[in-house]
């Protein structure tokens, strides 16, 4: 009994002294094992006088509980320490790119088209496509282009050796033929954007390519005026180039719009003046051609130009992407160099 009391007194120090889980196991067997003092007492309890048994029994229970708790507490500490050491040894170089997943890149032309379309979808427009191999009828005639217009010459337009020569099958020179194709099939109101490839008889150089991309916009409704054209394009400029943009329209000439204009947006990179990589110090960036739909186009598709009015615009996709991201020369859009593609976002 006295031994057990002494043991109970020294147990905390003993357990605390166990430096490892192995030492703690040994200690556990010393304190609570088959040959421990507690076990010995337990075995002799039957031989004690009856009146002593409850007291001794309680002492044994207290000792077991105390030793058990001490050991468990110490074990938890030792286990945590041990795991901490294991984890410490498991250290990695967090800067090492040890595993790489394959990465593919979206083309800047596509992502620009998607972004612009999203802006106009937000205004209630529909996205439509159209044929790239087109007839002279839609590419020129429907768009009020006179038969003698220089854009019809072989020096400007790529013609196909296909079909009836009278139909002048060609590679569309702009996305505008879809204006006529869409209006022919749908009644007003019309709010559409048409992204797509267009073609010109140009030899590739820094600023020319026989193939490039445009996005056409067309809105036809009752009561659309020049103010709607201005407002819509200003909205686009702010969405695409930043909320601080203003626009200016300068008169220009296109066969299928009247009044016709060229739209400039205020430069997003400078305040005008000085040397600017983007605008050359002018303060304005030429972005696109636009105008009010010419009455002759309405007549061609069977709309009554006295009842409806509308506006159209056509922007070069490479142009606006080039302005915003500085991609130059133009061939970087078509070489598909992975070092270029991987820069596209």
């Amino acid at each position, binding site marked *: 009994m006295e031994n057990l009391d002494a043991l109970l007194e020294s147990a905390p120090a003993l357990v605390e002294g166990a430096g490892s889980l192995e030492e703690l196991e040994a200690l556990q067997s010393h304190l609570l094992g088959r040959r421990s003092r507690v076990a010995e007492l337990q075995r002799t309890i039957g031989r004690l006088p009856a009146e002593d048994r409850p007291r001794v029994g309680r002492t044994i229970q207290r000792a077991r509980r105390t030793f058990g708790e001490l050991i468990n507490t110490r074990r938890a500490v030792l286990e945590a320490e041990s795991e901490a050491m294991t984890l410490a040894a498991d250290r990695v170089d967090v800067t*090492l790119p040890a*595993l*790489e*997943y*394959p990465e*593919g*890149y*979206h*083309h800047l*032309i*596509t992502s620009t088209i998607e972004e612009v*379309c999203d802006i106009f*979808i937000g*205004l*209630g*427009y*529909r*996205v439509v496509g159209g*044929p*790239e*191999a*087109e007839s002279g009828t839609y590419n020129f005639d429907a768009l009020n282009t006179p038969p*003698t217009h*220089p854009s019809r010459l072989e020096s400007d337009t*790529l*013609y*196909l*050796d*296909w*079909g009836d020569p009278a139909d002048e099958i060609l*590679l569309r020179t702009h996305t505008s033929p879809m204006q006529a194709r869409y209006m022919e099939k749908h009644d007003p109101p*019309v*709010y*559409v954007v048409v992204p797509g*490839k267009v*073609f010109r*008889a140009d030899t590739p150089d820094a600023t020319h390519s*026989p*193939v490039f991309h445009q996005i056409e916009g067309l*809105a036809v*409704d009752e009561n*659309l*005026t*020049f*103010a709607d054209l*201005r*407002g819509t394009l200003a909205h686009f400029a702010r969405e695409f180039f930043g909320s601080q943009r203003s626009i200016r*329209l*300068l*008169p*220009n000439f296109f066969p299928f719009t*009247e*009044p016709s*204009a060229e739209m400039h947006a205020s430069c997003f990179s400078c305040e005008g003046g000085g040397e600017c990589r983007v605008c050359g110090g002018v303060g304005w960036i030429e972005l696109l051609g636009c105008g009010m739909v010419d*009455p002759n186009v309405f007549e061609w598709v069977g709309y009554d130009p006295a009842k409806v*009015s509308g506006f159209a615009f056509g922007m070069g996709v490479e142009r606006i992407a080039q302005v915003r991201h500085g991609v130059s020369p133009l061939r970087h859009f078509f070489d*598909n*160099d992975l070092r270029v*593609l*991987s820069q596209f976002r």
Partner: protein
Amino acid sequence: MRVSLNWLADYIDLGSAEPGSVAEALESLGHEVEEIEHLAPRFRRVVTARVMEVAPHPRADRIRVCRVSVGGPSMTVVCGAWNFESGDTVALALPGSTLHGGIEIGRRSIRGVESDGMICSEKELGLGEDAEGILVLDADAPIGDDLASFDPLTDTVLDLSITPNRPDVMSYVGVARELAAYYRVPYRLPQTEFPEVGGVPRIPITIEDPSGCYRFVSQEVRDCRVSRSPFWMRTRLRASGQRPISNVVDITNYVLLELGQPIHAFDMDRLGGAGIVVRRAHHGETLTTLDGVDRRLTSEDLVVADRQRASALAGTMGGGDSEVTFRTTAVLIEAAAWDPPTVLHMSKRHALRTEASARFERGVDPALPPMAAARATRLVTSLAGGEASSRVTDVIARPDRMEPVTVGLEPGEVERILGPGFDAPRVTDLLSRLHLEVQGQGPLTVEIPTFRPDLTRPIDLVEELARLWGYNNFPERVPRGPGGGRTVQHQRTRTLRQVLCGLGFSESVSLSFMRASEIEVWGWAEDDERALDIRLRNPLREEESILRTTLLPGLLRVARYNNSHGLENVAVFELGKVFFDRPHPHLPKVPDQPERIGIVATGRMGGSGLGITRRPVDFYTISAVWRVMARHLNLPDWRLDPVEIAGWHPARTARLTVEGREVGTMGELHPEVVRRAELFGRVAAMELQLDPLVADRTKWQFQAPSVFSPYTFDMAFEAPEELAAVDLLAATGEAAGELLESARVFDEFRGEPLGAGRKSLAINYTLRASDRTLSGEETAAALRSMADAARRLGAELRGEL
């Protein structure tokens, strides 16, 4: 068109307007200013001087000693030029002056005579290329003035880009007229009076082709002296981008720039016979034009001819035979109105675009020729002397072209297009400023002058109103459409693009052409649709002469481009149209041009890292990509069958069938195609029709996952070589019935101990029921029937069940 503001001031007073604000005014009117150039002399301490006396040099024959005055005591200057006499005004570089190019002039002795400076040539002053003689200034120039402050030398030039619908602005008077409307000030026309002399015979003019020539005005000047133009004219022409030649030739250019009416001058003595005929050329007729080119003419060309032969390409360029030279003493001045398309086609046909053709092809005011001829006559007689007949000869073949047009305009119509604020008084005011005559109050009647051929309809006047009002003075309003957004096809195409990017493929965008050299290696059979190519009628280069019938050559080009720039692993795809020589299924008159998706991979692909190498691409790369595509596009019903197609690997190519419809090909390209594309190793590729993949397919049904335990096990089969894995999977799967959750081939093996023509396929199966945990008996029965099903295909289970 280059516009010198000094010259422009002859026709309009712009007061104190700065060049920058003039440029802004022009831009707001639709005349883009490409550049504002400030011209300033690049010399110092050069003054105007009068030559008082010229004497021979005492010790040299080729140089002379001049006494010159700059206002004070006279100075002595030695000069080697001979093109001046006493009384002329010249440019004198004083000692200490600097000439063009930084040359410094000091006092020096020339063969014993002390020279107080140097009399300068145009070239030495940086004013022109002429180094033949010294610069002789206009006789009335004040002497002793700093030449640098000489008015004509300090100038601002606006380089204007005039849109093709505005030929009337391609002249100084035209620009002045536009600015007059903008600034609300008057503009002036140049003086055209000249001393009239009767008795000069007049050459008869015949217009044989009124379809090409509306009007022909001519004027003869006899006994004139062709020499250099005065300094002011040379300076103005140079500032406007013209090279001075001789006074008569310079005058034709001067009047062209001044009024916009091209003028031609013939040496009258070099014209054969008395009489001018405007006619179509005879087929095969030849003409040597002023640029020295011998041109063979066709019956579509329009010429100005004498009685014998063509002397000029109408409205385009004169002939060398009748060119005005310094020996010319009699000139015939021509000012005509030519049919715009005739000139346009002639200039295109002969690849000859001149200042004259650029104006005629857009339309020159048919009322201009008499005034322009008179203006030229005035300048010739005053600068080159000579006698002119009292009136110009004016032959009008198309009087209908000279009548002014009227256009009716409803102010309400203006407001319908431009918005409110354009009532009759404002419309009348704006149009009047543009020199249009407006009559009426409600519906307006507008008389269009002949110099505005572009104004024929009410909408043309609406544009004029907007232009003068200022495009940027309109409010901004944003209308909303009824919606619609992207079609399902567009959305699913976008999904496809995103899936491929996620798998490591980059999107490529190529020109839509293929080259003959790229396609011959494929050896397409005649009935292969890829042989149905369409050629361009007017290709610029071989590279862009054939429309693509397949995306693969373009993608191989991309792979090759990247390979050659050190990037060995290339995985790219392209979405785009191909073109076939057959009718479009829906649209009349245009060729079939369906959308395709093409994929090419070369090198290695997949994840990589420490201890992980990317897998070299092969058939399985591309079929794995397809399975991901099919899952994302919700296309469960598809199959691959081996196929042999020209250009593809005969044993590693599959045809894809989706819902019973053949959709395309995938696999490895034939080594010969790979070699010809200058690529290495295996090249995996796919080309599919896009439409069947992205058609509307939104319906699928949810299946609750089972909460019971799965039974997962492997089976290895020894099978004949020709047994397709998909068939073994299908047969064993069918045998497992509803219990089958998944089956995946994890090993394929050939060689010992298997016999020749045999292979081993190891498959990992998972069985699971939705309503219970499978019992041992159930799984054993399933395994037996799966082994039996395999056996019926000739595949034996390896090992025990």
